[in-house]
């Protein structure tokens, strides 16, 4: 109890050296901290899904709204599901289902490849988390 009072008094003494403009300056400074964190630390966030079929870009889909894209390939149709901020291969006619089992992709630069059907799904953003991917 006494300690709390002493602490409050100690803080009050230091706060007495703050003027109105100083509080304003501190507020702006904290604002700069938060804003810079928000703008500079969203590097890995993807903003687009690029779907390729047979080596050519089939569709570029914004990751804002949910959507399903059906991509025809040599052995059937690959179904790609897009949700805000992420995308996945929901169904694929390939025998081993590797691209389906990768699940949701949510970081820029991530890729799911359905080789038998020649379809790939990749996410792009301003800055990618990966420089390159090898399989």
């Amino acid at each position, binding site marked *: 109890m006494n300690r709390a009072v002493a602490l409050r008094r100690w803080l009050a003494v230091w706060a007495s050296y*703050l003027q109105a403009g100083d509080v304003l300056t501190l507020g702006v400074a904290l604002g700069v901290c938060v804003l810079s964190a928000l703008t500079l630390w969203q590097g890995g966030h993807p903003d687009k899904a690029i779907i390729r079929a047979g080596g050519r870009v089939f569709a570029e889909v914004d990751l804002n709204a949910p959507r399903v894209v059906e991509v025809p390939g040599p052995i059937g149709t690959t179904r790609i599901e897009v949700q805000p901020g992420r995308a996945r291969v929901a169904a694929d006619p390939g025998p081993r289902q590797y691209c389906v089992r990768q699940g949701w992709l949510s970081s820029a630069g991530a890729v799911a490849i359905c080789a038998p059907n020649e379809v790939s799904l990749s996410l792009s953003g301003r800055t990618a988390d990966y420089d390159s991917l090898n399989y």
Partner: protein
Amino acid sequence: MTPSTTEIELKPTADDHRVARHAAAAIVLTVAEAAIPLPLPGIKPGLANIITLVVLARWGWREAAWVALLRVLVGSLLLGQFLAPGFFLSLTGGVMSLVVLGLAMHLPKRWFGPVSQSVLAAFAHIGGQVLVARVWLVPHDGVFYLVPVFALAATVFGLVNGLIAARLLSEELAEKGVSAADVGK
């Protein structure tokens, strides 16, 4: 003894002594601070800036600039950093914050105290350092990834240094008030 004709005699004025005293205090703080372990390179409390702020308020910008630049120079010599990258970072930061302090000292005194000056100078300091780092030391945008951390450090240490400077200045004024009263008796 006749003075030789080649001998140059320097007569330090009272101003020179004062600059030297303040610079010495700032250098001590710089060296002491170097012993504090900190998690990220580039983040330091910058306690020596308390001296710069006090000198700025009491003796003006010119003397504050002398004290700050002497501190950067001698501090780097003592720590073995002279002309190393860290020296140029300190120098840029020091020059940038002096420029900003030169502007901030004209803010209305009624509203803005040493804390504002300290925070603004701290931001100028990291701003200059990050730019030098980006252009020269780490030519990659990855440097900017650390900006929020530096900004937070500038806010916190700017506040702390500013508060200490404000307290020192007000205590100084109080002492003067007392001595003036004594003279009046």
